[in-house]
C-alpha cells in the first residue's frame, strides 16, 4: 500500500474518532446534563389532567322535601383544536346527536377555549348514542363522552326566585380572581338566588385524573385519580307547600285585580307584578317568598335557548327575573308604624295625643294644603285610631313635629326608619337585594346637585315621608322585617333562607350566621300601642275589615296595616303588612302589588288566604 493511501487511512481513523466523539458528547449533553429537563418535558408532553365534575348539592325545603337535585347525565364534548377542520367527525356527530352539521361546526369553530380544553356539544345524551360513540371512538378523534350533572326541579317554577338557576360560567368570571383556579370553561355555576349565594357550598370538590395519552390523545394509563366530593345539601327555611299556596294566591289575586277597574274610570289595574313574604318573626326564617311574574328554571337546564332568554328579558313580560320581594317600592301607609314609633319615642305624641282630621291640613302654610286619603276627614283621633284608619293628617302632624324637634338637625324620622332596617340591605341570602331609600338632606344635596333650589330638606319632605311617600322606598322584605320587629318587641333578625347545610355524608355543617339578631331596645309600651292600632285595622271600621270580616280574629288576632302608595306616572302600589297571632306571633305576612290600587281591598285578601291555610281555617 502506498504511503499516500496510508496517510489517508490515518486521516480516516481520526475523522472516525472525531465523529464518534461528537455523537457521544451530544448524547452526554442531552442525557446527562439536560436529562432531567428532557424527562420533565417528556412526562409533561404525555400526561394529561382531566377533572371529574362533582355532583352539585341538593336543595331541600324545611321539611326535607327535595326541591332541586343533581342528575348525572352523559354529555358529548369535543376538543375544538382537534375536531375543527375534521369534517367527517362533525358529520358523524351531527348524525348521531341529531344536531345540524352547521350548528356543530359553529360551536366548534367559535369556541374560545384553549387548545386542549373541551366544549360540550350536547348534554343528556341517551345511552344508545353514548354506546355508539364509545364504540366508534377511534373514528372520532377529539370526541369524548363525559359525565355532567344537570339540575332537576321537582317543583317546577315554584320558588324559582329563591332557588335561582345554574348556567355556564362566563368568560369574565373565568378570568377573574374569584375563580381561584377552580372553574374551567363549560362549568356550570349558580347564577341567581341561593344557587349563586351558596355556590361554594353547593359545588363540591372536583375530582382529578392524571393519565398518560398516546399521540392520538387516547388515554393509555391512569397515574393517579382523586374522587370528586359531592357538594353540600341546603335545607331551606322555606316550606314548599306554603310556598305553593303563596304563589298560587299571589297569581290568582293578580288575575282578579286585573279584572277590576279603577274607581270612576274605565281603566283596569295593570298589576305588573307583585311579591309576598312570609316570615317567622321569632327567628327571621323566611317561610315563603314569592315574586310574580316568575320563570321556569328548567329553561336553563342544558343551556337556555336564545328565544327563551329574550322572553325573560322582554319588558312586555314585566321582567320575570326581577325578585320583587327584595326590590324597592314606595311603601305608602305601611310605613306609618315607623312614624308612630318615632313620634311616641321622641315625645312628639303620647298615647293620648289626639289630632283632628278635617280631610285637609294647612300645617305647612296656606299655600301648601295637605289632604287625607279620606276627603271627608276622620275627625278627632288618637294614635290607635290613626293607625286603624290610616289617617294621613294625623301622621302629617307627627312628621311635622318630628321635623320641628331640634330643627330637624337630627333627622329623627330618618333615624327611626334606619333603626327599623330601612335604607339598607336586610342581608338576606339571595343576591340582588335592593336597599330601598331613606331620603335625607345629604341625599337631596347629591341627587339634586344640578337643581340648587331642591337641595334643601323642607318640612314638607318629612311630612310626606311620614305617610310613606316622597322619595322613600322599601322592599317587601324590609317591610316584613320591620313588622317582625314590632311583633317581636324590638328584636331584629336577619331574614334568611337557609335552615341548615349538610355535607354529602349528612353531617351538619357549621353554619352560624342564621341566628344573628340584634335587640333594638325599643320601648315595649310604645310597641304595644302601635300593635293595638294594627289590631284594629282588621276590626270593624279598620282599613282591612272588609277582607277580615269572616276571619276568626277572636281566636287568631291579626295585626295589620294597609298601604296605597302613589307612584308618579303609575297606578297606585298596593301594600298589606301583617302578623298573627298577636301576642304570640308566628307569622309575618307582607304583600305588595304593583299598580293595583288599594292595599286594603286588593292585597289583604292574599294574606287572608294564606292565614287561612296556615291556621287551618276553612
Amino acid at each position, binding site marked *: *500500500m502506498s504511503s499516500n493511501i496510508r496517510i489517508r487511512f490515518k486521516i480516516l481513523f481520526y475523522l472516525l474518532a472525531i*465523529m464518534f466523539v461528537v455523537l457521544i458528547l451530544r448524547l452526554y449533553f442531552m442525557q446527562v446534563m439536560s436529562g432531567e429537563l428532557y424527562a420533565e418535558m417528556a412526562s409533561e408532553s404525555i400526561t394529561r389532567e382531566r377533572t371529574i365534575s362533582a355532583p352539585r348539592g341538593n336543595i331541600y325545603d324545611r321539611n326535607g322535601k327535595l326541591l332541586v337535585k343533581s342528575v348525572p347525565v352523559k354529555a358529548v364534548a369535543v376538543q375544538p383544536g382537534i375536531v375543527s377542520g375534521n369534517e367527517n367527525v362533525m358529520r358523524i356527530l351531527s348524525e348521531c346527536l341529531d344536531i345540524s352539521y352547521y350548528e356543530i361546526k359553529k360551536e366548534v369553530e367559535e369556541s374560545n377555549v384553549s387548545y386542549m380544553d373541551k366544549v360540550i356539544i350536547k348534554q343528556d345524551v341517551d345511552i344508545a348514542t353514548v354506546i355508539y360513540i364509545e364504540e366508534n371512538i377511534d373514528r372520532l378523534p377529539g370526541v369524548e363522552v363525559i359525565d355532567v350533572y344537570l339540575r332537576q326541579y321537582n317543583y317546577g317554577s315554584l320558588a324559582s326566585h329563591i332557588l335561582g338557576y345554574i348556567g355556564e360560567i362566563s368568560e369574565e368570571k373565568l378570568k377573574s380572581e374569584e375563580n381561584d383556579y377552580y372553574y374551567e370553561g363549560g362549568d356550570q355555576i349558580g347564577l341567581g338566588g341561593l344557587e349563586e349565594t351558596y355556590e361554594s357550598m353547593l359545588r363540591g370538590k372536583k375530582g382529578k385524573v392524571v393519565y398518560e395519552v398516546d*399521540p392520538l390523545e387516547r388515554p393509555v394509563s391512569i397515574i393517579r385519580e382523586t374522587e370528586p366530593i359531592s357538594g353540600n345539601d341546603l335545607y331551606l327555611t322555606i316550606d314548599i307547600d306554603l310556598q305553593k299556596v303563596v304563589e298560587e294566591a299571589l297569581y290568582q289575586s293578580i288575575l282578579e285585580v286585573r279584572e277590576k277597574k279603577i274607581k270612576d274610570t274605565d281603566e283596569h289595574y295593570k298589576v305588573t307584578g307583585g311579591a309576598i313574604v312570609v316570615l317567622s318573626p321569632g327567628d327571621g326564617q323566611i317561610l315563603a317568598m314569592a315574586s310574580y311574574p316568575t320563570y321556569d328554571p328548567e329553561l336553563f337546564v342544558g343551556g337556555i335557548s336564545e328565544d327563551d332568554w329574550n322572553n325573560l328579558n322582554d319588558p312586555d313580560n314585566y321582567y320575570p327575573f326581577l325578585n320583587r320581594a327584595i326590590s324597592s317600592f314606595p311603601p305608602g301607609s305601611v310605613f306609618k308604624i315607623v312614624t308612630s314609633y318615632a313620634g311616641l319615642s321622641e315625645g312628639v305624641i303620647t298615647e293620648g295625643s289626639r289630632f283632628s282630621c278635617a280631610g285637609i291640613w294647612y300645617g305647612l302654610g296656606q299655600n301648601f294644603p295637605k289632604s287625607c286619603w279620606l276627603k271627608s276627614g276622620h275627625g278627632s283621633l288618637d294614635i290607635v285610631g290613626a293607625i286603624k284608619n290610616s289617617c294621613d293628617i294625623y301622621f302629617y302632624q307627627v312628621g311635622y313635629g318630628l321635623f320641628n324637634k331640634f330643627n330637624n338637625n337630627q333627622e329623627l324620622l330618618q333615624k327611626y326608619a334606619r333603626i327599623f332596617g330601612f335604607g339598607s340591605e336586610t342581608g338576606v341570602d339571595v343576591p340582588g337585594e335592593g336597599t330601598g331609600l331613606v331620603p335625607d338632606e345629604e341625599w337631596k344635596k347629591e341627587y339634586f346637585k344640578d337643581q340648587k333650589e331642591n337641595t334643601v330638606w323642607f318640612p314638607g319632605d318629612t311630612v310626606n315621608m311620614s305617610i310613606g311617600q316622597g322619595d322613600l322606598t322599601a322592599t317587601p322584605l324590609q317591610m316584613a322585617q320591620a313588622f317582625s320587629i314590632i311583633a317581636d318587641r324590638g328584636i331584629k333578625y336577619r331574614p334568611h333562607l337557609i335552615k341548615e347545610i349538610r355535607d354529602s355524608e349528612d353531617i351538619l355543617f357549621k353554619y352560624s350566621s342564621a341566628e344573628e339578631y340584634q335587640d333594638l331596645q325599643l320601648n315595649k309600651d310604645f310597641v304595644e300601642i302601635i300593635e293595638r292600632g294594627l289590631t284594629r285595622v282588621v276590626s270593624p271600621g279598620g282599613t282591612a275589615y272588609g277582607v277580615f270580616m269572616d276571619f276568626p280574629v277572636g281566636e287568631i288576632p291579626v295585626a295589620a296595616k294597609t298601604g296605597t302608595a302613589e307612584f308618579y306616572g303609575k297606578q297606585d302600589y298596593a301594600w298589606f303588612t301583617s302578623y298573627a297571632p298577636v301576642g304570640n306571633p308566628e307569622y309575618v305576612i307582607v304583600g305588595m302589588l304593583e299598580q293595583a290600587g288599594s292595599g286594603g281591598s286588593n292585597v289583604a285578601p292574599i294574606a287572608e288566604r294564606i292565614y287561612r291555610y296556615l291556621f287551618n281555617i276553612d
Partner: protein
Amino acid sequence: MIRRKNKDSFDLEGYGGGKKAVNYDFILFFMVLAISSFGALIIYSATRGTLPGGVTDPRYYLKKQLIYLAAGIALFVGVHFIDYRKIERFWWLFFIAGIASLGAVLIFGYEVHGSKSWIDLKFVTIQPSEFSKIFMVICVAGILSKWKREKEHHVTFKKVVLSLAVALSFVLMVLLQPDYGTALIYLIVYICLLFISGANLLYVISIMGMMAGGIFFAFNAGYIKQYQLDRILVLLKPEAYPDEGAGYNLFQSKLAIGSGGLPGKGLFLGKQTNLSYVPEHHTDFIFSVIGEELGFFGAVLVIIVLGVIIWRCFYIASLSSDSFAMLLGAGVGFIILSQVVINIGMTVGIMPIVGIPLPFLSSGGSSLISMLLGAGLVENIYRWRESRKEHEIAYQQFK
C-alpha cells in the same frame, strides 16, 4: 490468530500458512452478531406495544427480524467461502444487477412515504437500494483498483471518469424513486472511496464541487421539495416547526433520548417510544428507543460497538495489500459509517432528518441482510488476504 505488526514488510508469519483453520476476525464477527441480535431485541421493545402498521401480533416485528437475521447470518458466513477475487472480475455484473433491480423498483415497486423504494415479492419485500449500496462499492472498487494490465495501482483519470459514471448511474436511479437520503449515502460513499483509493485530491475536490453545484442547481430549479428543505431548516430553528413534520419527529426523538438520562428507563419501559410518540421508532428512529430505554450508558455502548465494527472494516481494509480488497473493505466501512453518523446525528438533532436506517439495528430485512453481507465480505477479505499475499509474493519472486 495471525496479526501483522509491520504492514510494509512481508508477513512471514502468515507466509505459506495458506488456509488456516482459524482465519476469522472474531472482533468483527462477534460485534456484528451482538449488535444485530440486540437490534432484534430493541425492535421487539419498540413494536410489542405499539404494533405499527396495524399488525396484531406483538412479536410480529421480532419474528420477522429474527428471520432476516438468520438469513443475513447465513449470508454473512456463506460469503466467507467464496474468494472475493472472483467478485472482482465480475464487477460489471453487479453493476447490471444493481441498475436492473433499481430499474425494476421504478416499474414494479410500491410507494412508502412518497418514495418508490420497495418491491413486493409476496413472501418478502425487498428494498433494492439497500443491496445496491454494496453493489456500487463492488463496482467502484473494481474500477478504482489495480487493473490486470497495470503494473502498479494507479488511479487514472479514465478510472475516475468511469467510476463516477457508474456511481452517478446508481445515484440517478435512487433519485428517481425519489429517495434523497439514500442517494446522499451513495454520493458520500463514492467520494470517500475515491479519496481512500489514493486518487489525486484534485479529482476528489472537483467532484465534490460538482456535486455541490448539482445540489445547488437542483434546489434552484425546484427539484428539492419544501419538506426536504424543512428537514434541514428544522435543525437551525427547531422552535419554528413545533407540531408537525420534521420538527415534530425531531422534538419527540430528542425528548425520548434526553429523558432516558444516564441509566435509561429500562428495556421495554420507554414511554415516548412505546407510546408511538416518536414516529418510525422501529425503523429510522430506533436509536431513540435505545437512548430512552438504555440511557446514556446503553447509547454510548451501541455507538462504541458500531464504531468498533467500522474500525474493523477500515483496519481489515488497510491490512490488505490488494487494492480491490482494500477498497471493498473500506467501502463497506463507509456505508456503515455514513449511515451511523447521519442516522444517530438525526435522532439527536445534529443532522438533517433523512430517511435512512441505522445499520444492524433498524427494523427491515434489506438493510440488515445487506449490512451482514457487507460485513461478510470484510471477513472474506480478512480470510483471503493471506493467500493473496502468497500470490503476490510468488508473483514478485517469479519476476
